[in-house]
C-alpha cells in the first residue's frame, strides 16, 4: 500500500479542536465533518486537499479531545497519510482503529516542506520526498497493529475473530 501527493505542513501540538472544531460535532456524518477538516488552523485545507495528499506536522499531533471525528475527517477528505514527529495517544489509537495511515518520523517531519510531492510506502515505512529527492525511514508498526490495519480496522478484525469462534 502506498500514497503519493502534495504536502500540507503544520506545526507542533495541532489539537483536535482545530482539526475539527466542536461546533461541527453535532453530526457523526464523515462526509459532512470532512468539509470542515483543519478549518481552525487552515481554512483552505478542506477545499484544496486532493486524494493521496499528505499532512506533515511536528510533535504531539492530534492532542486534546478523544473525538474520532478528527481522524475521520482527515481520512474522508482524501488525505493519504499523516506524518508527524509524534502523535497524541488517543489520536494514534483512533487513526489505527479507523484505518487512517500515520507514520512517526522526526527527520521527515522536520525536513519535508509544504507543497513538496511525497511518496509513502506503508509496507516498508519509506517516505520519499520527490521534490528534494531525499528518502526517510519511519518506524514500522508492530505486527499486532499491522493485523488491525490489514483487516480494515479494529471492529472488522474483532468481528472476524468472533465469527471464527
Amino acid at each position: 500500500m502506498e500514497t503519493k501527493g502534495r504536502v500540507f505542513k503544520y506545526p507542533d501540538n495541532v489539537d483536535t479542536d482545530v482539526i475539527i472544531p466542536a461546533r461541527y460535532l453535532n453530526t457523526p456524518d464523515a462526509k459532512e465533518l470532512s468539509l470542515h477538516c483543519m478549518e481552525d488552523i487552515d481554512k483552505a485545507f478542506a477545499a484544496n486537499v486532493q486524494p493521496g495528499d499528505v499532512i506533515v506536522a511536528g510533535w504531539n499531533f492530534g492532542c486534546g479531545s478523544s473525538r474520532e471525528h478528527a481522524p475521520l475527517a482527515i481520512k474522508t477528505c482524501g488525505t493519504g497519510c499523516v506524518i508527524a514527529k509524534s502523535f497524541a495517544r488517543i489520536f494514534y489509537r483512533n487513526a489505527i482503529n479507523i484505518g487512517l495511515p500515520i507514520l512517526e518520523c522526526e527527520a521527515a517531519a522536520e525536513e519535508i516542506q509544504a507543497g513538496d510531492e511525497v511518496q509513502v510506502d506503508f509496507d516498508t515505512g519509506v517516505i520519499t520526498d520527490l521534490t528534494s529527492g531525499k528518502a526517510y525511514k519511519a518506524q514500522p508498526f508492530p505486527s499486532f497493529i499491522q493485523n488491525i490495519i490489514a483487516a480494515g480496522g479494529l471492529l472488522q478484525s474483532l468481528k472476524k475473530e468472533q465469527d471464527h469462534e
Partner: protein
Amino acid sequence: MGMTMTQKILAAHAGLDAVSAGQLIRAKLDIVLGNDITTPVAVQEFEKAGFDSVFDKDRVVVVLDHFVPNKDIKAAEQSKTCREFACTHCVSHFYDVGKMGIEHALLPEQGIVTAGDCIIGADSHTCTYGALGAFSTGVGSTDMAAGMATGEAWFKVPSAMQIVLTGSLPADCSGKDVILTIIGMIGVDGALYKSMEFTGSGVQSLSMDDRLCICNMAIEAGAKNGIFPVDAVTMQYLEGRAERKPRIFTADADAEYESAVEINLSQIVPTVACPHLPENTHPASTLHDVKIDQVVIGSCTNGRLEDMEAAYKVLNGKQIAAGVRCIIIPGTMQILRECVERGYYTAFIDAGAVVSTPTCGPCLGGYMGVLAAGERCISTTNRNFVGRMGHTESEVYLASPLTAAASAVAGYITEYREA
C-alpha cells in the same frame, strides 16, 4: 523488576502475573463509557460491523452531557441515537436530562467506578477516575464500540512518570493549581503515552475533589492515565457509594519510573494557563492587567461540590464586575440540588451570575457561553486551544474556581485574597 500501580491493574485485567512497559495486552474492562458526541459514532461502527449485543448491560455507561438539553436539531438527533441504543440494549447506566451530570463528575458520585477498575471511555477526560485508584483512560468511538461488543480493549502497557507530592496546599490553592503547575513544568506532551503516578506524603492532604481534578488533566500533559494510591480518603469516598467492591493495588517498591518530578504542595501558588496551551502557565498575581469578558466555573475538571463552595466563598455578598458575564455550572444534578439547599444558587444569582443545569457546553465552544472575536474568558475548564470556546480570535485562561470567581468580581485576572 517490579510493577507500577497502573501495570498491576493492567496485569490483573489481562490475566497475567506480570506485564512490562511496551508490552501489548488485551485487558478485560469493568466499565465502557460514552457521551452524546462519541456514542453515535460508536453505535454506527458497532452496527456496521454486525454486532448485535453489548457484553454486559450493567457495564456500559452512556451519559448525555455535551450538548444537552439539546442545543440544536442535529444534537437532538445524536441524543436520540444514544437513547435508542441504550433502550435496545437495556443499558442500565443511561443518563438523560434530569438524571445526567457531566460524565466525569457523575460516575464517581454515583459509585459506578471504583478502585482497581480497568475503564475506557470515549472521552479524553476519562483519566479522571485514576483519583479512585483505578486504571482509566480515554479512547475513541471505535474502541468504545469494540469495548461494548467484547468487554475488552488492547493496550500498550505504559511506562511511568512518578510525581512525588510533599507538604500540603495553601488555603488559596486547590488541585487545579497543582495540575496546572505540573503541566507548566513538563509541557503538554511531557507525559506522552505514560502513566502519571502520584505518590508521596502530600497525597493524604488532598481531598477527593482535588484528586479528581488533578487526574482529569493528566491528558493535558499527554498522559495515558493519572493515578493516586488508595488511602483513607479514597475508602471514605467509596464507602456506601461504590457498586462493586474496591480492589486495592499498590506499586511495588522496586517499580520502574522513567522519570520523577517532586512537587512541594506548600509552594504552589494560584496558577493560570494563558492562551493557547495548558502548559503556558503563570502565577495569577502577574496577570492583573488581563481584563476579562466572561467567567466559566464548572466542567468535568471543576464542577464538583468543593468547586461550588469555592465560588460561593468568593461571590457571596459580592457583585460580578460590570461588563463581565459569569456562568456557573454545577457538575451533576445532585451537586446542583446541593447548591440550592445550601443557598449557593441564590448567592450566585444575587452576585449577578447565571447558573445552568449540568453541561459540557461552553468548555468546548458548543453552546452556553461561546466567545466572539477578541473576547477573553477565565475558565475552570481544561483546554485553552485556539478557538476552543468559540471564535479563533478569542482567548481562554485556565484557572481554579477561587481564582476564576475572584477575577469575576475584579473584572481582571486576579488571585483570591481572604477579606
